[in-house]
């Protein structure tokens, strides 16, 4: 059954890509998160006669008493689990798209170049496009309301996926026009807070956090590029096996 094959291969592909992602993150992303968390509780003393900084836009609605994984092995374990789950979810979406493309394709050849192209497209759709408007944040940064950002994230992902798909699989000579879709979320603009990112922190902490935020952007860009490279190549291997088993046609 095709559905069962897709789920099993997505779990396998997700486990490999999620493990690689966790290793890369552990080396260059997580240390930045931990450095930023040192400052997370710090708040600048109110400036006399100054603006009220209570509404920095960082709506921290999470319950402080809620369960949180212990720092160390437990926290790393949950990050690994989240990475593998996310990778399996992305793997299901990617495999479904690749198998759909293979069904309508006249050639049966699928090789590593397809893997690179699909991986690069996934990176562009699920990381680059949303990150251009909403750079990955370090803990403690002020941001617009969560709902507004989640909505824009979805908007950016759907538009860039539709734009790329229209360009790649459209039959009309005007198919390149669908690339315009990719630009639309960025013309609309991502939601941003009215205050500076670290307006509620003491000046020296804010300077340090801004440096960390820049490092974080670069570190996540590299980690996600490695992740999508692995996900694209392993998914290509999976699709080859699914196609060879002759399971994709009715």
């Amino acid at each position, binding site marked *: 059954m095709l*559905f069962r094959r897709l789920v099993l291969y997505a779990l396998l592909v997700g486990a490999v890509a999620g493990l690689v992602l966790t290793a890369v993150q552990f080396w260059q992303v997580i240390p930045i998160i931990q450095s930023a968390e040192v400052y997370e509780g710090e708040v600048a003393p109110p400036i006399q006669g100054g603006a009220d900084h209570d509404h920095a836009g960082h709506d921290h609605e999470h319950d402080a008493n809620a369960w949180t994984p212990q720092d160390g092995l437990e926290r790393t374990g*949950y990050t690994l689990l989240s990475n593998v789950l*996310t990778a399996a979810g992305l793997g*299901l*979406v990617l495999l*479904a798209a690749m198998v759909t493309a293979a*069904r309508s394709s006249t050639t049966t050849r699928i090789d590593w170049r397809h893997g690179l192209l699909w991986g690069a497209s996934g990176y562009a759709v699920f990381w680059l496009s949303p990150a251009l408007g909403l750079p990955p944040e370090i803990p403690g940064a002020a941001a617009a309301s969560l709902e507004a950002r989640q909505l824009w*994230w979805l908007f950016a992902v759907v538009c860039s996926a539709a734009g790329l798909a229209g360009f790649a699989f459209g039959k009309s000579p005007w198919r390149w026009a669908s690339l315009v879709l990719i630009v639309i979320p960025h013309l609309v603009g991502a939601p941003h807070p009215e205050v500076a990112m670290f307006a509620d922190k003491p000046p020296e902490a804010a300077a340090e956090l801004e440096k960390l935020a820049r490092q974080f952007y670069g570190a996540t860009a590299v980690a996600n590029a490695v992740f999508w490279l692995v996900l694209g190549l392993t998914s290509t291997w999976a699709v080859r096996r699914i196609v060879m088993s002759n399971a994709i*046609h*009715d």
Partner: protein
Amino acid sequence: MQIHASVAAPVSATISKPLQIAGAFLLGIVILYAAGFVSTSAVHNAAHDMRHSQGFPCH
């Protein structure tokens, strides 16, 4: 004694391939929603580091 010429059709023949692919796609979306978007405190705290590094809006 009559011998049945055919056994029951396998499940895969009863659900069309496009529908199975769509099912896999939707399952992927549901998993991504749970890992990246659900704001329940426990889920948020477990997935916190992944959300920050994968660029999902967090907090």
